[in-house]
């Protein structure tokens, strides 16, 4: 599965969040992720943008929430690129994609609820994008919300790296899907390991994680069988 991350930020180079995310996305070996920054200086090449959409299966909008909405360049991108006859309407070619949102907030996430300072939930505020996905017949993925990046602790940032990488590349968000994602990541890292010791170490780790995965699946299967017999 190929993922396109469309990044919109008025002051991209000064954004700690965006620099962090870019760095983490670039670290992923063998991943099929395209990082696409909307250039604030250049005018849009609509055909090139449309070609990018055709070539990718999962489309991500990544942006800071600006006045409860998209930054202006991404809003303009929608008007210019998602045209009738291409994105929707007769002969449209974009149906069936997955659509994700990576949104960063300057306020704490728990203020985005009834009674909080921001009053409305993120789900409510992102409704226009959900409507867009509906119109384009794209499957809307649960957004990844990054709140107050600059105040995150080291362990929160470590968790964010994994959450973000999974958001770009994971198909199945269940625990089974997560286990398979880590097994695949380990296999890639074994391939790229720079020493034999590291390779052996990672291989034994992968084998143990795989054994646990298999044993857990078998146990669940047996338990389900007995449950069914009892009921």
């Amino acid at each position: 599965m190929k993922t396109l991350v469309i990044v919109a930020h008025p002051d991209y180079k000064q954004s700690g969040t965006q620099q962090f995310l870019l760095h983490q996305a670039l670290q992923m070996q063998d991943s099929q992720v395209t990082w696409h920054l909307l250039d604030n200086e250049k005018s849009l090449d609509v055909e090139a943008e449309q070609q990018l959409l055709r070539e990718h299966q999962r489309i991500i909008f990544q942006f800071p929430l600006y006045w409860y909405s998209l930054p202006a360049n991404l809003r303009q991108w929608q008007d210019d690129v998602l045209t009738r006859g291409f994105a929707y309407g007769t002969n449209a070619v974009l149906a069936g994609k997955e659509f994700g949102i990576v949104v960063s907030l300057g306020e704490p996430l728990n203020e985005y609820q009834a009674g909080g300072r921001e009053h409305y939930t993120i789900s409510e505020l992102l409704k226009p994008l959900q409507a867009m996905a509906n119109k384009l017949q794209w499957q809307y993925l649960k957004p990844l919300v990054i709140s107050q990046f600059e105040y995150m602790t080291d362990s929160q940032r470590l968790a964010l790296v994994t959450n973000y990488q999974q958001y770009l590349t994971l198909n199945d968000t269940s625990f089974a899907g997560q286990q398979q994602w880590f097994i695949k990541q380990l296999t890639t890292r074994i391939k790229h390991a720079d020493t034999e010791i590291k390779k052996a170490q990672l291989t034994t780790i992968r084998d143990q994680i795989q054994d646990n995965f298999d044993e857990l699946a078998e146990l669940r299967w047996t338990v389900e069988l007995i449950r069914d017999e009892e009921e």
Partner: protein
Amino acid sequence: MEEQAWLITILQDLLATSIKLEERAFYQGLIDLANEQIKRLDQSSGELDGRIWNPSRWG
């Protein structure tokens, strides 16, 4: 359970000796995943024992 203890120990060593943030994140993620696997293995085998040990079906 010895192999599980070994798994966590080796992952903790890798986490402690890694410098790159991305690698540390990966090992931290693996530790969390392995701990969740161990917890679920324990719970599922407990449930299996409980369901097999069913006096109402003796007879």
